[in-house]
């Protein structure tokens, strides 16, 4: 694919955003409003900016990275606008801000390449831990924690009359991938050796196992203190997969899986909110007006979708609690049908394939593990939330990358994209 084709696809995505927004207002009987133009223009500005930043500071990067992201973001932003006009307008600002920050990150990596990230890894680790702990600050201070739906994962920054809320966990996940990738790139030989044995099971030196247990402890702590099931599975899963990739030892995956299973079982018994979610997953209609309401409404939305959906603006996705965040995918499916759902899944598939391709071709272990970790983060997050809304897994409240409403998520995920672009550029240089 050429530069022109990539740019062309981004323009198509911007036109889609504008046209989709127009369809929503037309269906509502308002005709084409200013929203359609603003949405298309903001989208074009954000993705055009990232496109030119990549062409300037990572010119040899693959052309396949940005178009699937643009498609997902276009469909997502139309649906967010359709569910809640105000959220849809806010999302445009978030997109512009996130794109600007992603461009700054790319510029910073321009001088020394992603190699520079390695040097600051302990700073990143400390920053990540600090960010994860932020929501535990008492609320009421100018900068304080806040709980939403029983999970304490938000931070509120009071700015006089207005308040800015963000989820520091989103940024922390990117910092942690950088830390783990650089840590594992150095230690992978030691971790891969299994000098000790326990019966037929080979074991590495105990001290080598420490990081695994530490990561598990940290994830579980996140779960306990912030009641955030999704983030904790995401963090631990990403670490276990990286450990497996770094060592080629499936035993780490098995051990990680067992820890997750054990931790999940324990969490189910200890925490009422986890238990509630499992119940709502398995039997949403038993407590229809209570805990099962959200999942049941999601099922109703799917029941109404069919092959082509109800049409943009013609369904009722706003009936689902958290339609614009957790349930964005189901909302898209309700109004654009199986066809729209497949389009999004295909875009995610393409994006992940490109990410894994970058990881496989990267020049050294650090770059490879970094690209892999970032891609796996996107993959895990996508599977967790889609599995949750489609009742394959218990629902965990995390965002669908690029599609859900939310500034923190958009910022973190666009940063992931520019880092991947940079690695892609370096590998071809």
């Amino acid at each position, binding site marked *: 694919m050429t530069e022109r084709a990539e740019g062309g696809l981004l323009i198509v995505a911007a036109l889609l955003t504008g046209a989709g927004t127009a369809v929503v207002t037309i269906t509502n009987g308002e005709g084409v409003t200013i929203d359609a133009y603003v949405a298309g223009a903001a989208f074009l500005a954000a993705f055009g900016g990232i496109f030119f930043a990549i062409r300037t500071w990572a010119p040899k990067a693959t052309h396949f990275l940005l178009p699937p992201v643009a498609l997902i973001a276009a469909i997502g932003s139309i649906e967010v606008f359709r569910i809640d006009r105000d959220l849809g307008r806010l999302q445009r600002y978030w997109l512009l801000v996130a794109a600007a920050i992603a461009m700054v990150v790319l510029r910073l990596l321009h001088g020394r390449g992603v190699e520079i990230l390695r040097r600051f890894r302990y700073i990143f680790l400390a920053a990540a831990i600090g960010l994860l702990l932020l929501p535990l600050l008492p609320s009421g201070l100018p900068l304080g924690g806040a709980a939403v739906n029983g999970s304490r994962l938000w931070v509120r920054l009071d700015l006089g009359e207005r308040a800015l809320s963000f989820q520091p966990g989103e940024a922390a996940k990117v910092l942690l991938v950088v830390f783990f990738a650089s840590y594992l790139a150095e230690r*992978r030989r030691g971790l891969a050796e299994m000098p000790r044995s326990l019966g037929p099971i080979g074991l590495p030196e105990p001290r080598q196992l420490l990081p695994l247990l530490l990561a598990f402890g940290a994830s579980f702590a996140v779960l306990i203190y912030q009641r955030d099931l999704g983030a904790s599975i995401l963090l631990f899963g990403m670490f276990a*997969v990286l450990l*497996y*990739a*770094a*060592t*080629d030892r*499936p035993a780490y995956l098995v051990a990680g899986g067992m820890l997750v299973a054990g931790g999940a079982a324990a969490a189910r018994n200890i925490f009422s909110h986890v238990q509630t979610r499992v119940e709502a997953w398995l039997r949403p209609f038993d407590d*229809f007006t209570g805990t099962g309401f959200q999942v*049941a409404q999601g*099922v*109703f*939305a*799917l*029941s*109404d*979708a*069919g*092959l*082509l*959906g*109800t*049409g943009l603006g*013609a*369904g*009722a996705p706003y*009936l689902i609690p958290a339609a614009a965040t957790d349930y964005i995918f189901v909302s898209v*499916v309700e109004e654009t049908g*199986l066809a729209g*759902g*497949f389009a999004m*899944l295909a875009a*995610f*598939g393409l994006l*992940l*394939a490109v990410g*894994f391709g970058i*990881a*496989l071709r990267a020049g050294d*272990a650090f770059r*490879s*593990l970094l690209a*892999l970790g970032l*891609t*796996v983060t996107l*993959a895990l997050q*996508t*599977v967790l939330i*889609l*599995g949750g809304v*489609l*009742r*394959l897994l218990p629902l965990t409240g995390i965002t669908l990358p690029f599609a859900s409403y939310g500034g923190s998520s958009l910022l973190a995920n666009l940063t992931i994209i520019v880092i991947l672009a940079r690695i892609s550029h370096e590998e071809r240089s």
Partner: protein
Amino acid sequence: MNPAMRRIAAVSLGAMGFLAVWLTFQQVTAGSTYSDDPRNVRALGDTDDDRRGIITTAEGIVVAEDVEGIRSYPEGTTYFHLVGYAAADFSTALESTRAGDLRSLDDGSITSWLITLFGGSVEPPEVRLTVVDRIQQVAARELEGLTGAIVAVEPATGAVLAYASSPAADPNDLVSGEITLEEHLKDRAALDRVAFRLLPSGSAFKVLVAAAALESGMTPETELEDSAEYLAPGAGQPIVNVSGGRCSGGNEISLSDALAVSCNTVFASIAVELGGAVINEIAERAGFNRVLPFELGAAVSSIPSAGDLSADEGALAQTGLGERDLRVTPLQMAVIAAGIGNGGMMMQPYVVDSVLTRDGSKLSGTSAKQLGRVMDGATAADLTAMMAAVVSGGTGRATARADVTVAGKTGTAEGSGGPHAWFIAFAPAEQPTIAIVVMIEGGGSGGSIAAPIAARVLDAWFQR
């Protein structure tokens, strides 16, 4: 490192593919299961076409339709308790349970436009009943002026062939407002006597006592003591026969003959001999004390617990005759009669055969479901022969036919306003196509009142 990364990539991309398959699966299951759920408010608002579909009998005769925007019921009272009615703010029976199926398929979407383009129909669908108009008409006519119920089912499947309860209201009057909902709810016509009227069954219950006797090792030929009175241990009043004397000429009577003439003293003593646990067990196997899964709902037929029956043998003796605290719906008796005719396997009763588009393609259908075995095949065969003797030479003679063998049992239950007349039957005995229950409240004796009515419904069924 690379082999592991390749595997991770393969699993991740595989997961995306699996999610696509899973999404399809979820949409299909959600679409077929939950689109009609009454809690799904989406379903209410997604069609511009608010016409309701038609309801037709097994022969295709229309019993509910929209005529110029007004819901109409061409057959008047005949189908009232089965089809119900749909007014703006209230609906009953099938008009309520099938509200979703009767909704227009035109939801204004591209999909329905495409269906129309390719010659399909998005008109409001047709709900086709299992009920056969030919015998429904006879059943409703027979009940005119009486209080009671007639229900007929196909023994092999559980498909309901006739479903009539009297008195019945005219649904057209309820739609037009000539009868208000409040008036209707106070009226006796509001009660569906097929599924919700609980009465003692009288001697019709003896078929289950007879089955328990056969299971305990007796045969139809087993000779039992025939006496004019039977006094259960501890009971105050002795049980006597309808005739006042013995049931036969001698001192002994066979089990089969005792059923044929509905001999009270013999069945009371059998019930006491077998014990409360056995009587309770056969009744519970037949569906007593359990919710009968039925589209329109059904009252729970009941029998006292094994402990209560064993504690009072006087009551046990009377329960063996279908009296005292035993309560059963006509529908439950129909399920039992059909079960005996079906070799002991009871089938779940159902009233809707299928939902069809207006160009005749099937949207959904009901398939026969087994409810449970009430007795084994050998017991059912013996009992069928005994019930055939009831009709050929016993209390059920009114239903005897030249063309087919009818197996039946009469019942006359004590009631405050006169005895309730029952008749349960299935025919042809060897391979039944119909099982029927007639119940007339305060009507008189089962043999003289209910059986002749059943005979006329069977006439309508067998004159093909």
